[in-house]
């Protein structure tokens, strides 16, 4: 009997902790949005972050995009060739990248590269009393440090996703057209005719913006809540990758169902 009571108590406590954490997270998001005026009054703070965060991830995003494009070119050709439709390779590569792979893979890479940097930076600033110092200087650290990083991440994500898709299409072209010998005219014309700006490109941009909000928010929240110790910062960094990646995949399913479902 005692065991059952203990089990129910533990379950209740775990549930309560989760709900409280969700509440903190939501309030944190609200505070970030509420303090976002600084992004307009001092846009330089945001542009600096777009530059830093974008730079963190640019190389890895571009290289990954190239390899994903190579693979899409190869796999797409093998499959389409069975049905004599290899001319549609350009369309397949472009749709795969703009609708799904561009936003999703970029967001996963972003969580691993820039997300972890953001969490570690905020966590270490906390551990080094930098955030407390700011507070006693009458400067709100959430407004001064977190808000520019948040908007920097949100703005950088669609740009990086666009770079990923662009380089990926180039990779597909190199493998499909230059290596295998698919007709270049068909490759580009099928892509041009089949890719819709609103349905495909715009929806892909919307996805990458949503992923940018989710991953940057998680990274900043984890850094903000991190215990100010080396172990605490290390754990927070790991949580950023796990929570960030899972939320990207979960949100992708939801968004895909909303955007492309009948």
């Amino acid at each position, binding site marked *: 009997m005692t065991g059952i009571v203990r089990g129910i108590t533990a379950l209740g406590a775990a549930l309560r902790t989760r709900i409280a954490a969700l509440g903190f997270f939501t309030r944190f998001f609200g505070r970030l949005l509420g303090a976002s005026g600084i992004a307009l009054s001092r846009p330089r703070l945001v542009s600096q972050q777009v530059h830093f965060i974008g730079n963190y991830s640019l190389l890895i995003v571009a290289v990954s995009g190239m390899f994903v494009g190579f693979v899409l070119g190869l796999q797409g050709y093998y499959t389409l060739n069975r049905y004599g439709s290899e001319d549609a390779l350009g369309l397949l590569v472009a749709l795969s990248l703009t609708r799904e792979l561009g936003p999703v893979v970029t967001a996963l890479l972003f969580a691993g590269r820039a997300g972890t940097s953001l969490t570690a930076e905020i966590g270490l*600033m906390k551990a080094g009393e930098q955030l407390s110092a700011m507070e006693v200087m009458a400067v709100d650290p959430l407004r001064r440090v977190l808000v520019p990083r948040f908007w920097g991440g949100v703005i950088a994500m669609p740009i990086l996703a666009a770079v990923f898709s662009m380089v990926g299409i180039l990779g597909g072209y190199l493998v499909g057209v230059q290596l295998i010998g698919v007709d270049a005219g068909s490759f580009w014309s099928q892509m041009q005719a089949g890719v819709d700006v609103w349905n495909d490109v715009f929806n892909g941009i919307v996805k990458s913006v949503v992923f940018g909000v989710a991953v940057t928010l998680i990274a900043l929240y984890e850094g903000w809540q991190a215990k100010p110790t080396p172990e605490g910062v290390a754990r927070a960094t790991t949580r950023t990758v796990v929570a960030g990646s899972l939320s990207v995949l979960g949100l992708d399913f939801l968004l895909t169902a909303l955007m492309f479902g009948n």
Partner: protein
Amino acid sequence: MPESTSAPVPPALRLTGVSLGYGDFTVLRGIDMSIAAGEVVAIMGGSGSGKTTLLRAATGQLPALAGKVEVFGRDLRGIPAGELQGLRQRMGVLFQQGALFTDLDVFENVAFPLREHTRLPETDIVSRVLDKLDAVGLRAAAHLKVSEISGGMARRVALARAVVLEPELVLYDEPFAGLDPISLGITARLIRDLSDRLGCASVLITHDIEESFSIADRVYLVGQGELKAAGTPRTLSDTQDPYVRQFLRGEPDGPVAFHYPVTPAFERWLAQRGGRP
């Protein structure tokens, strides 16, 4: 003709019957102290005696469990956030670890409060920051990154940053820790000079008896959860109080125990480990 009446100037910092702590644990109780403009006051005590806790109460980071903390005459209890920010703009704080912003260089660290709270033109910012860096002997280090300077230099940069807005109340948490003898003497004189020149109240939280006694107008000694003694450096030096004498002379025997007291929790832990009490 009506008689001209001027309101008495409240002390920069006043604590009345203050108890401070974290959760259920009370660190200090019944603390009374007052620091007026132009005064240099040293708060001394052993490690873990609650000196930094006092500083956190003065900056409004830690609410008092009981009693009243007043800064520039304003009670911090229940103070609106906007008003607290206004009071903090009149304060400067030197943190124990310096707390320099690692993403900014030395110059930008010192310029930070000016950029956030003033609309000075860039030439004025450059001149003011270099002036303050010159006072701490680091004018020529303005271009360096924080990672390129030593711990002692970082504390001097933090000192320059704490006073760049020429505040009315400056709180120094261990200002002499990690400084070489030359920097130590210069820093002590700088604190005294700043107080005399600007008329600001200075609170030093320190272990360094010699330097703080040479510049302080008054000394408060905290320990065992309470205020143990208060007075001028001379009265404290001459006192026969065994606690004060042991602290000032660094004697191993006396009312201050060097060893952490044995608690039932420790005895239980030791028994589990198979150790002897």
